[in-house]
């Protein structure tokens, strides 16, 4: 009789780590999930802000020139002045953006713009297709530089999850 009681007592009171480990793992996985939800929301908000402040407004500045270049034969003499006016507006806008995103490399953007517009001024004759292709590649370069510097370099968040190097290339 004594042996029977002793046996059942030992079975009910023996200590096991398994449930404790399971609880700890569950808590950790909940914390990780919440942290990743927080990270993804934060990235989403920062992206939306960047899209609205930077990309949408810049696209609006480019819009009328985009339409002219898409539909018409371009006269170089007229386009020289128009390119200067457009890209001065672009530079002004990006210069103001550096107040929000101070690491945007405005000098590199200006260097690229001057490279293209100075080419226009040097030439006395240029085919519409050459003007258009130069314009499109400059526009892409500007957007690419903005994404690189404003997003990748501003976000310590990306650095934390190891994306900074890839994005900043």
């Amino acid at each position, binding site marked *: 009789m004594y042996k029977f009681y002793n046996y059942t007592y030992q079975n009910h009171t023996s200590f096991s780590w398994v449930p404790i480990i399971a609880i700890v793992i569950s808590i950790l996985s909940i914390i990780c999930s919440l942290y990743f939800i927080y990270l993804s929301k934060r990235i989403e908000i920062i992206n939306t802000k960047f899209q609205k402040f930077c990309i949408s407004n810049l696209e609006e500045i480019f819009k009328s020139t985009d339409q002219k270049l898409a539909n018409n034969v371009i006269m170089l*003499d007229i386009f*020289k*002045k128009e390119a*200067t*006016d457009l*890209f*001065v*507006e672009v*530079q*002004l806008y990006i*210069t*103001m953006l*550096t107040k929000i995103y*101070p690491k945007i490399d*405005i*000098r590199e953007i*200006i260097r690229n713009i*001057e490279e293209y*517009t*100075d080419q226009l*001024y*040097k030439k006395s004759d240029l085919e519409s297709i050459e003007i258009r292709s130069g314009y499109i590649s400059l526009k892409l370069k500007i957007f690419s530089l903005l994404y690189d510097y404003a997003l990748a370099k501003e976000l310590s968040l990306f650095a934390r999850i190891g994306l900074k190097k890839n994005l900043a290339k």
Partner: protein
Amino acid sequence: MSQIDINLNTLVDPPHTDSISGRGFGEEYAKTIELLQKIESNNKINFIIDSQYVKAINDSFIKGLFSKIFQKYKTIEEVKKHIQITGSDYFKRLFEKNWLILQEIYNV
């Protein structure tokens, strides 16, 4: 403070050239006319641009012309004490927009 006129019309030769461009050219021209020294000597510089001769000026030239001035004087208010543009409203606005860009660049 005495006024010195600098005529940018002399930089074009219509009908062969009627536009001005190039940051390097702007920097060289600033050296040639000793722009910074003239300003440091407390002169007021009046740039004259006649739209009949000068059809377009690229912003690269303006940035080259004034980069040393903004490196030293930093703000548009200070630069305007020494520089004046005599020309169409278009050219006045173009110069002022580029001064604003230079001011922001050199005040970072």
